[in-house]
């Protein structure tokens, strides 16, 4: 879509880099223009009116002027800040993963209003979950994610893969195309695009235990608001995460850094 000299868009800040004395270069996911980069002049100054609108993982309304190399933001107002996300380490890391996954999987100026809505809704869910978690002192003693937060992230990853055209197959064997039986000895191969039945097990890269398969199928086929609270053991959670990370790493040609740092 050709962009006019001055244009207005809402967007979600998915990356910012300091530039020069007090400027920031932003990468923003927008519904109309896809992923765009622009400069926010003076936004690192304490007195800058733009500063809060251009902070990472803030959804804002921006007025932009087309520049020679980079467009320049002239006005910005905050639409949503996801404040609770910032107060919980796990949820904040999950927010980073959402931002990094968008940044790495999309090309500039490729319109994806569905992915924009997915990211916005995921951050809203994470924010609400962080608020509930922060309000209840008992779960705060537990390390790691909440059940709802964990399911939200896995749902985000599977829906994003689907929207990008990398939907993994968990109902049929990707080699012989036979319906996958609910047994313990299925396998998985990210390069082949999904699950592998026991008969074709020589193509399997990693085992796919029954509970892991059930969780992946459930999250893939269920709208996030209908997802039940799943109390899973750490091994199954790790297994599901590793399978999804494998698919992302293969398709994006490298792993997302946010995953590895603290563990989402």
């Amino acid at each position: 879509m050709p962009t006019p000299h001055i244009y207005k868009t809402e967007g979600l800040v998915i990356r910012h880099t300091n530039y020069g004395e007090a400027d920031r270069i932003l990468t923003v996911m927008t519904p109309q223009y896809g992923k765009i980069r622009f400069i926010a002049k003076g936004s690192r100054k304490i007195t800058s009116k733009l500063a809060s609108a251009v902070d990472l993982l803030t959804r804002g309304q921006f007025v932009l002027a087309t520049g020679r190399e980079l467009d320049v933001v002239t006005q910005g107002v905050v639409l949503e800040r996801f404040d609770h996300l910032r107060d919980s380490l796990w949820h904040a890391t999950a927010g980073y993963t959402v931002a990094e996954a968008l940044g790495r999987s999309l090309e500039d100026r490729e319109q994806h209003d569905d992915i924009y809505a997915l990211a916005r809704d995921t951050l809203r869910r994470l924010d609400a979950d962080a608020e509930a978690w922060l309000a209840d002192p008992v779960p705060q003693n537990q390390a790691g994610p909440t059940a709802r937060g964990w399911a939200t992230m896995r749902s985000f990853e599977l829906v994003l893969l689907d929207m990008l055209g990398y939907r993994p197959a968990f109902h049929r064997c990707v080699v012989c195309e036979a319906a996958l039986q609910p047994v313990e000895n299925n396998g998985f191969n990210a390069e082949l695009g999904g699950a592998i039945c026991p008969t074709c097990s020589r193509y399997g890269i990693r085992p796919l235990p029954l509970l892991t398969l059930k969780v992946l199928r459930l999250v893939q086929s269920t709208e996030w608001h209908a997802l039940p609270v799943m109390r899973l053991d750490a091994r199954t959670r790790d297994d599901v995460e590793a399978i999804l990370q494998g698919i992302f790493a293969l398709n994006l040609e490298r792993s997302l850094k946010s995953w590895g740092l603290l563990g989402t």
Partner: protein
Amino acid sequence: MQTTAPAVTALIEEFAKLPGVGPKTAQRLTFFLLRSPADQSRRLADALVRMKEQVTTCTTCFNITETDPCPICASPQRDHGVICVVEEPLDVLAIEKTESFRGAYHVLNGALSPMEGIGPKDLRISELIARVQGGEVREVILATNPNYEGDYTAAYIAPLLKPQGVTLTRLARGLPLGGDLEYADEGTLSRALEGRRAFEG
């Protein structure tokens, strides 16, 4: 055939390696020095060499210094029971300019940024914990930047320091001095309202 003197070209190339300096600015800086008195260039060269040879990092607070420990860490006039944790040495300068803080500092050397691969091991976080475990510290002020990375870094450090029984504080957020309320952004204004104080005027 080289038309420009090699010494001039070499200086242009060196300037152009600096952040924010493009080839044109590098040329302008070089020709400015070429036309200015020799003494000015000598002072610049001396300052550069001295900076590289004499500046080191304080092994207590990790601020840049010419002596180890740095003057702040070595000063008996400072309150070493209060540590202000900042991201960069420039933040120390900014806080020192206020003349309102008499405690000590701890420079983290950046902020956590999972997307850039900057993790806890890249910052001076374990050194901060060791320092607090030393027992002298009563309060730790988490003065990381008021943005996502700064909040994230503070959220990472806080649970590590809590078991040590120190008071943890965060810098207040609010309105800059001398501004008009109507120009304040919503985020700052709402934080300023949350952090309002009793008026004793």
